């Protein structure tokens, strides 16, 4: 039963993120580029809560994207999962007040995500216009994601702090 509230919160967070990204963001797209909210969620949970939780969040974020838009189920799940796991390594460097590390991690994750999407879905299909894609999709998406991070990161941080405080309170009850 422990942590069930956290799980429900995560589920709600992922679903809201997905709906925002697929419904609201296309309307506010700049130069037909939308920020990657699912990646912000995955990476944030990764460095706030560690490898395992980041990994599972990534898996479900990716799976949702796979199921609704992907050609093959599992590809995005795999990518997001590794992004979540990778961000988990930075948990010990993470402090709530510092926004530089989260920004750098999310930017780096988005860059990797873009590179791997190109590698797996375009280069293996015989499409070698990497400079174009880098300039017109990968880099703009990264910049836009960083801007959106400034807003959404605080929401995720606040939710996490609240959950952590509650968990500590309920733990101390039994001591």
């Amino acid at each position, binding site marked *: 039963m422990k942590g069930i509230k956290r799980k429900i919160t995560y589920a709600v967070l992922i*679903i809201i993120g*997905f*709906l*925002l*990204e*697929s*419904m*609201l*963001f*296309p*309307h*506010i797209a700049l*130069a*037909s*580029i*939308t920020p*990657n909210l*699912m990646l912000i969620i995955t990476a944030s949970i990764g460095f706030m809560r*560690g*490898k*395992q939780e980041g*990994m*599972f969040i990534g*898996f479900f974020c990716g*799976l*949702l*994207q*796979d*199921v*609704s*838009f992907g*050609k*093959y*189920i*599992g*590809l995005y*799940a*795999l990518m997001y*999962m590794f992004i979540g*796991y990778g961000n*988990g390594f930075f948990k010990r460097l993470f402090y709530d007040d510092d926004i530089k590390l989260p920004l750098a991690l999310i930017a780096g994750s988005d860059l990797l995500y873009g590179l791997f*999407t190109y590698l797996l*879905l*375009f280069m293996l*299909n015989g*499409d070698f*216009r990497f400079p*174009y*894609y880098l300039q*017109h*999709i990968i880099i703009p*998406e990264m910049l836009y994601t960083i801007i959106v991070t400034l807003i959404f990161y605080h929401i995720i941080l606040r939710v996490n702090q609240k959950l952590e405080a509650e968990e500590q309170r309920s733990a101390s009850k039994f001591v």
Partner: protein
Amino acid sequence: MKAKNQNTFSSKYWLMIMTVVCVILLVLSFVAERAEKNGSKGPLSVVADYTIVPMQNGLNKIGMWTRDFTKNFATMQEILAENETLKEGNDNLVIENNQLQQKAVELERFYELYKMDEQTADYEKVGARVIASDTSNWFTTFTINKGSNDGMRVDMNVMAGKGLVGIITHVGPTSSTVRTIIDSSNTSNNVSAMMLTTFDKCIVTGDLELINSGCISFSQMANNDNEIPVGEQVVTSNISDKYLQGLLIGTVKEITVDDNNLTRSGLIIPAVDFRQLQEVLVITTTKQDIIDKGNSETTNDKAAADEETIPDETAEPESSAE
């Protein structure tokens, strides 16, 4: 210390398990795609159809409202300025209008011709609302709010206004995924097309690089004596196996002779504004239906002819056995 080690071990362990799960899912979906080209995406998509899609329907309304709101605000200043100039222009237009009315009779005749030419009106269409677009920046697919419960099937052609938008690639119970003709994801997405007046065939290909300039490209058109002017309409061809004949794709923007001097290629301006898609029309007849209909007529004739020959065929082995 020990507990810490255990912890890292278990998360590594989980990563391996989940990786295997993902790979299995990938393989399964790959196999499933090969196996059932006509079926739906499988159980997971059905689950999503009943959970995510209804929520998407609701939130899409909010999305459209916010977009309209910001748009209204931005365009108000423009409209005020425009109103001034339009008032001035009005007087000139009144004079021009008188002249044009004389040509109206002529125009009516052309309109009749145009209506005859408009073949797309023949197909039965069903309206649907676009409820979600692809979350990644790499592909241009979107979801509509009608699925197999509403009679949607894979390979149905999708239009908006008078232009071709794309084709249904996956169908769930209450939603379907549409792949647009500007999508560049794979070569099987190419559209076989032809010029409206000369019937010269060509291949229309979506391209990520061209989407931002609002164009799609065409290639492999024979370099013959037929001159194709800029502005020529491009429609789907009669030899396409997935797209119905005569659906408008767009107009030719530029055309060049390829280096091999045998073929021509160029750019097309699509008839549909893909960024503004909200409602689309799905044509409920697929090309396969038309092919099947044609085949069943010919096979009926064939069957009738076969029946006469069957007694001869069965008699033959007996005679050879003897």
